[in-house]
């Protein structure tokens, strides 16, 4: 079975490889991977949701835009996101309805602060019908 993502070695920061059978699934799994670093998502129940819409000149930039948009909302609206329903995804546009839970009483779920999803060595590739991308997060 395909893993949604895995954490891979990076000396200073945290790096993940996200996988997906489609670009949509890849973007969802990348977001899930990022929030798994920020917080313990095990058994978390959603209680709030948000519309997200981002655009960018190409797919790699769009991925970073998407992740940074989620981070911004995490830090300013205090929501731990755990469901990432991407409705539409093109090379340059993404719209999604994301669900999560307010940090409030879930403070003990928080793990590691992520400053940003970086563009370092970022390439979306496709091997044997599986899309994958390695993302370095500044922590």
């Amino acid at each position: 079975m395909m893993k949604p993502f895995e954490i891979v070695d990076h000396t200073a920061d945290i790096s993940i490889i996200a996988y997906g059978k489609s670009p949509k699934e890849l973007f969802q799994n990348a977001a899930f991977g990022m929030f798994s670093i920020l917080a313990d998502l095990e058994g978390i129940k959603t209680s709030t949701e948000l519309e997200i819409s981002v655009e960018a000149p190409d797919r790699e930039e769009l991925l970073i835009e998407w992740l940074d948009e989620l981070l911004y909302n995490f830090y300013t609206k205090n929501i731990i996101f755990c469901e990432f329903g991407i409705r539409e995804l093109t090379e340059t546009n993404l719209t999604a309805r994301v669900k999560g839970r307010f940090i409030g009483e879930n403070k003990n779920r928080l793990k590691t602060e992520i400053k940003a999803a970086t563009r370092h060595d970022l390439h979306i590739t496709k091997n044997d019908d599986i899309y994958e991308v390695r993302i370095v997060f500044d922590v």
Partner: protein
Amino acid sequence: MSEGWQGQLQKIDDYRWMIPKSYASGMRVPGVIYADENLLASINRDKAPQQVANAAHLPGIVKYSLAMPDIHWGYGLPIGGVVATDVEEGGVITPGGVGYDINCGVRMIRTDLTEKEVIPKIDNLIHALFSNVPSGVGSKSDIKVSDAEEAKIMLKGARWAIDRGFGVKEDLDRTEESGCMEGADPSKVSDRAFERGSNQSGTLGSGNHFLEVQAVDEIFDDEAASVFGVNKGSITVMIHCGSRGFGHQICDEYSKGMVRTLAKYGISVPDRQLACAPVKSPEGQAYIAAMKCAANYAWNNRQCLMHKVRGVFEKVFGVGWKDLGMSLVWDVAHNIAKIEKYDIDGKVKQLCIHRKGATRAFGPDNPAVPQIYRRIGQPVIIPGDMGRNSYVLVGTKKAEEETFGSTCHGAGRLMSRKAAINAQGRYTLLRDLAAKGIKVMAAGKGTLAEEAPYAYKNVNEVVDVVHNAGISKRVCRMRPIGVIKG
């Protein structure tokens, strides 16, 4: 480590190694890494040297793409990277060469307290610091400001806190740039950055940021130590943090913007995280004005944190902070870009110096060093890992001649966070630290194991290299007795 460096490193001398220009076709200058044979082995295990080579592609880069001995794999520039570009010759500025945590830095406070006086109260002290200094993921402060007030923080830096009674004027004389860079422009800062910065002044954050109570265990330079006010056996406090979500948001937005204007300036970079614009372009100028806002925000943040720390010491020891001798020794920025003048082949040039995980290290008589330290040189504060040592060094003329006035910034990571967690559990680690007489408290679940001492290079080896290479000189060494991690 997965993929190590496969390229060539030519030995220049015992402490310098060169990546020749011929390594990659787009390199404009060679790369030079400061290290000894031993550190070089760990440096070669990851992609940091490749990032030194990548940075050598930046338009307008002067002399060489430098890396300090605490170099490790980052994003864009390596951590420990120093890059100078010629402002008048199309030289660029890159937000990826400063980092997301703009003006991440360290400040060190001296005290008249001795280790003997503090040890019996260390549990109380660390608990009180932990509950009074907000730390951890997205930590928020009791200092919440309006947009208008936040703009004042951007313009005034640490002076904002001093004006509110969170410190004294003398603190500013002991802060790089006196705690405020001229030319900050809040109109270049987005609403989102304002929003993220509204309640984070006086917060530590997470990751490698920390607050440490330390004891001075060795003096190497009596004269400098006495000017800096540190004595063997005395207690010092070190604060490591930066501009929090405010700076992260600024770096993020300007990196994004510069990816989009690369073509306009005909610039191609080997890694998008090195997206850049000429210093003199509108995009470059806007980033510099916003970066200065974040730099000033960070100095104010560390000033607010120091105020909280002084307050806790007052409570725990029942004596005012001034009577405890808690004056600031120095505050350094180690993620920043600055315009400085250097003599390049007999010509004085204005250079944009990027220091990413590198510390300014100006020598004696430099006019940028405040009067109190000018005869000795600028203090350089080097935090190590939480189980070994930290240092105070002093800058040198040789650094000004050889490394654009720069030196290392810390121990530098050796092991990934994943590997560090796998190496040892939290409880074994706490037990080992306790056995060494180090009391630790951490906000984040994973932070402790990730930040374990063995995840870092030995800071003593890193400092040996910069000392022996002459780009800074040892003044004193501290060891931790109490640690707070975010």
